[in-house]
């Protein structure tokens, strides 16, 4: 009786102590995480970062990603007026042509949204702002000579001797001594299908379709494919290059790692030193990492998709070698014994005893890497200069083509998701549908 009692109390004490210990550990982990995050908060100088955030940059980026602006520009020295989309040479309207909201002539009338109207006269620029008043300017060598309505100048007007800038919801007018410029904003990605020099620009889908059936399909395709604003052919090539890098890198690595994996597996290579050597080679290939391989290889081969493929190939040969050798070590020997009992030679034993067992494992690992390497190939392309990664970095560096950045990001996401589904589909198809693996 007494022994049972003491046992009970002992057990209770042990349990209570155990729970207390667990609770302490739980609180300890939470406390450690909080301490670490506090340290990071100061180490990364988060308050400074937050105060440095450039709200204007972010606004421009977001606005530009879904809208575009058309510039109407007047050269104040000779009075000539030109219209171009995003102010780019590639988006310029031909001489004497303009969109419907601009009336060219001796006096150019530009209609903005909400009934705003800017008039470029022969001498004078006039902008009658509803709810505020008439603003005029006579830019010349002595300044912009702006006349504003009486009273305090509002914050959205920036006026000085040599410069006048007015920003309203309807658009933007800026005047300097040499140049007058009006921006009008529109949503959408302009010139996505056809540039202004194409006869198909501005036609609706049905008009383009009916023309393509009447024998113009080739010309329509050529104009779309050669669109030098959005560069569709370059983009498709770039995506192809990125996928090619992933494909070559992954499967090349798998082909090299297969025989090496046997050399690193205990049950296939009895010689310890060879095994040890192979494993260290795998560790080295993985440890050097894709980044450094990319740097080394791009010095030798220059930028391009082959460099990217080889960088992926080298890193993944290390990863695959390690995984494959582990898979070989975990095989079931009974199958090999069974094959051997029928008098099979060593090569036949591998072919029928080992390969069918490991194929599903290896294939699923390879296909998993194919998907993740599509992402790596994008990243490597951004560093070494190839594929969609290069286009993305180029577009970001200009700091103004955010609609192109958005377009590339959407394409990258679609590409990765498609590769993900493809690799999943192949995995199911090859592994479940054919369990023998051959």
């Amino acid at each position, binding site marked *: 009786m007494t022994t049972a009692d003491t046992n009970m109390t002992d057990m209770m004490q042990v349990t209570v102590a155990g729970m207390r210990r667990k609770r302490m550990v739980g609180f300890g982990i939470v406390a450690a995480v909080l301490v670490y995050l506090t340290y990071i908060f100061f180490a990364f100088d988060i308050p400074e970062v937050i105060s440095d*955030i450039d709200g204007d940059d972010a606004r421009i980026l977001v606005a530009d990603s879904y809208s575009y602006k058309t510039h109407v520009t007047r050269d104040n020295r000779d009075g000539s007026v030109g219209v171009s989309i995003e102010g780019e040479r590639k988006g310029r309207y031909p001489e004497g042509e303009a969109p419907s909201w601009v009336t060219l002539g001796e006096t150019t009338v530009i209609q903005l949204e909400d009934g705003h109207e800017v008039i470029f006269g022969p001498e004078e620029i006039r902008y009658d702002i509803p709810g505020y008043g008439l603003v005029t300017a006579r830019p010349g060598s002595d300044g912009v000579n702006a006349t504003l309505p009486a009273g305090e100048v509002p914050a959205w007007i920036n006026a000085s001797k040599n410069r006048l800038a007015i920003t309203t919801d309807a658009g933007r007018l800026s005047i300097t001594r040499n140049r007058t410029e009006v921006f009008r904003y529109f949503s959408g990605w302009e010139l996505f299908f056809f540039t202004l020099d194409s006869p198909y620009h501005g036609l609706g889908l049905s008009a383009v379709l009916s023309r393509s059936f009447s024998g113009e399909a080739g010309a329509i395709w050529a104009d779309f494919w050669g669109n030098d604003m959005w560069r569709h052919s370059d983009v498709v090539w770039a995506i192809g290059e990125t996928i090619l890098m992933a494909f*070559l890198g992954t499967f090349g690595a798998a082909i090299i790692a297969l025989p090496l994996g046997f050399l690193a597996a205990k049950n296939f290579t009895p010689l310890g030193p060879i095994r040890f050597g192979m494993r260290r080679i795998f560790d080295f290939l993985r440890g050097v990492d894709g980044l450094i391989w990319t740097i*080394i290889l791009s010095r030798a*081969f220059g930028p391009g*998709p082959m460099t990217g493929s080889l960088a992926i190939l080298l890193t993944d040969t290390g990863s695959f070698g390690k995984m494959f050798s582990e898979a070989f070590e975990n095989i079931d020997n009974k199958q090999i014994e069974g094959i051997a009992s029928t008098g099979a030679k060593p090569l036949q034993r591998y072919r029928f005893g080992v390969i069918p067992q490991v194929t599903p494992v290896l294939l699923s690992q390879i296909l998993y890497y194919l998907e993740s390497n599509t992402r790596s190939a994008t990243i490597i392309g951004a560093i070494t200069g190839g594929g969609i990664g290069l286009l993305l970095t180029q577009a*970001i560096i200009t700091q103004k083509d955010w609609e192109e950045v958005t377009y590339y990001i959407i394409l990258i996401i679609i590409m990765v998701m498609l590769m993900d589904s493809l690799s999943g589909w192949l995995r199911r198809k090859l592994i479940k549908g054919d369990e023998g693996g051959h």
Partner: protein
Amino acid sequence: MALAETTSEISPSATSSYMAMIRRKRMMSGIMLAIFVVLLISGFLVAQERNAGDFLPGLSNVLGFPSDVVSEAWENRAQLPGFLSKYFPSLIETINIAAVSTLVGGLAAIVLSLFATRGLAKFPRLVPVFRRTMDLLRAFPEIVIALVLIFIIGGGPVPAMIAIALHTAGALGKLFSEINENAHLGPLEGLESVGANWSQRMLLGIVPQVAPNYLSYALLRFEINIRASAILGFVGAGGIGYDLRNTITFGMGKFDEAAAIFILLFVTIVLVDQLSSTVRDRLTHGKPVL
């Protein structure tokens, strides 16, 4: 042939149809293999054609850059310890980026995965929404988010941290929800019977069951994130990758410093690899970690 003896009692028509099937199967595999090889070779040729330099001429130069680096580092070997300690703080920053993004991304992944697992989700109707969210986060290569964030908030560790954390939340969330699906529901019912609310049920009923598996995947992710954080540094997001780019683009004269950075990066990656695989091994075999 051995086959003939065993099939002597089976009707010849069965044998021949079996052999025909085998032949068809072999032919299919042969065709598949041929297509695969053609794809591989033509793919390589296309890649080579679109590359700045060709494969064979470049092959002889592969060792040129490493030997430049090694020879310069060897000449100035006396300074190596100095360089190692000079770049050690950057290494710490790279590791910190990886650690904090794994931590934050992992915590987000736990919440996302609990919302995205059928049978556990608080709002069962929203399960597909959370799944798609995780797919989307996973599909973003870190560099995309990092480059855009560098434009908005400037260089430094924070853009890299956010970019890696977002990707980690998606990647780990998917793995965690697969783990959650295999959790026992008994503890949940017990907790529900004593009136626990949803977050208490998850925290006390599910998380303790799956914590070792979570930890194991998170460690694997930490390994990957160290590499990612070095790469993002290379495009301007701070840490040792940034120093690496500066020393390499400087060219000869700073290769000794580049060598020191290579060494730091290599040793770190190998150490974390070894450490995490040891810990993961212990976790999967149910042994205590420490």
